């Protein structure tokens, strides 16, 4: 996100943020220690993962499958827990 390089003289009074909705630029994907991996062959496209995702980072693709946006996905595993077909598994993140 913007802001990492800001010095104290760059801040608005009281650390007011004047750009509405700029929370969307904050990369919560950094928090993730496990990432969701899908076996789409067995997916019934029910969308429960999309509904349960607390980060609202799961979106539907053109074919009707669902996928997490890893810029935001915190790796909580709720999608994997809720999936009625156990299509989603959580795999440990590794140093790249």
């Amino acid at each position, binding site marked *: 996100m913007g*802001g*990492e390089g*800001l*010095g*104290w*003289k*760059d*801040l*608005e*009074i*009281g*650390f*007011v*943020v*004047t750009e*509405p909705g*700029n929370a969307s630029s904050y990369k919560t994907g950094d928090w993730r220690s496990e990432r969701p991996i899908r076996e789409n062959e067995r997916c019934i496209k029910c969308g429960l993962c999309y509904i349960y995702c607390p980060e609202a980072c799961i979106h539907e693709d053109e074919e009707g499958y669902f996928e997490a946006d890893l810029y935001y996905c915190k790796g909580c595993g709720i999608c994997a827990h809720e999936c009625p077909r156990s299509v989603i598994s959580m795999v440990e993140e590794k140093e790249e």
Partner: protein
Amino acid sequence: MTKGKIVGLEGSFAVAEAVRMANTDVIAAYPITPQTHIVERLSEMVADGDLDADFICVESEHSAMSACVGASAAGARVFTCSAGQGLELMHEVLYIPSSMRLPVVAVAANRALSAPLSVWCDHSDVMALRDISWIQMFAENNQQAFDLTTCAYRIAEDKDVLFPTMVHIDGFYLSHVIEDMVLPEEEEVAGFIPDYEHPFVLDPDKPVSMGCYGPPFIYPETKKAQEVAFDNTRSKIQAIWDEFGEIFGRHYSPVESYKMDGARIALLTMGSCSETAMLAVDELREAGVDVGLIRLRLWRPFPFNELREAVKELDLLVVLDRAISFGMGGPVCSELKSALYNKREELKIVGFIGGLGGRDIQISEFKYMVTQAQEKVKAIERGEEVETEIIGVREGGGR
């Protein structure tokens, strides 16, 4: 100079008059001894239509300060008051308006902290608020309670300040005592405290986010900005007090002195006991002791330069604390030593603690402190450990 009229007013009512004349928009407060009369009087003024303010009846001091934060963020002129345990319950929220640069004005009717339960005056509650980043000052009498509360609005709302400001009045000694004082003309006070505009207010047409999350990559920068801005308020505070002095004829400074000409020894006090200390200085001067009195008016931001100036001719500074920092001694004395460290090697500083939980401090006790402090200096020079003495405390031990 102002006309005004001389009236007899309780300290609490003097504060309420200042809040009314400042045309305060929102009051959110919870009654607690010894601050109760301020809240009661303000509530009465709003109910009677004498003050066009929203009086928010909250269920706790925590809620009172939370409501003040919200109202101030919306651009309102805001007041609250509390004391002792109430300030402690408010404590968590006190850091919020200062970090968000919201000019809330508050009065604290200083009270001891439990346990044992005490509704009486000391400065334990003040000392728990040292690091909240509010501008804080002490009043010594009801006139000053009115004047400093009036100035608090101007200071807090100044565009180069924008920090919440708190006036400390000693519980009961000021809050419940009727004294004669000059109540200025309303128009003159209104002229001194014009409407203000915060650069950022909650406004749907100009949306901003306040009180944001500050991850490690930005938090230290926010605190640096706050510390620099807070440090820079000193000159504005003096300028506003000077302007007040020109209009109303009563002058205030961060550090004020009494009979300091030629003094080699000085007592240092804050709040209402300063007037008792003045009487002690009068008697000691008559007896030929070169003693004066330094009164700490501005507590935060700490007036380093004015203090160093005030002590520059002294051999001995005798500090009275009305609170204990357990395991450390008198908190004000500790801060003075820190402020003067490496500045004047030859200056000795001796601290006493007194007036805890409403125990009276009398003229004779101030005189005792001056005499005893000189003995303690001799002991220090002999290399002995000198404890911080609690004035008038009974030893007992006969059981």
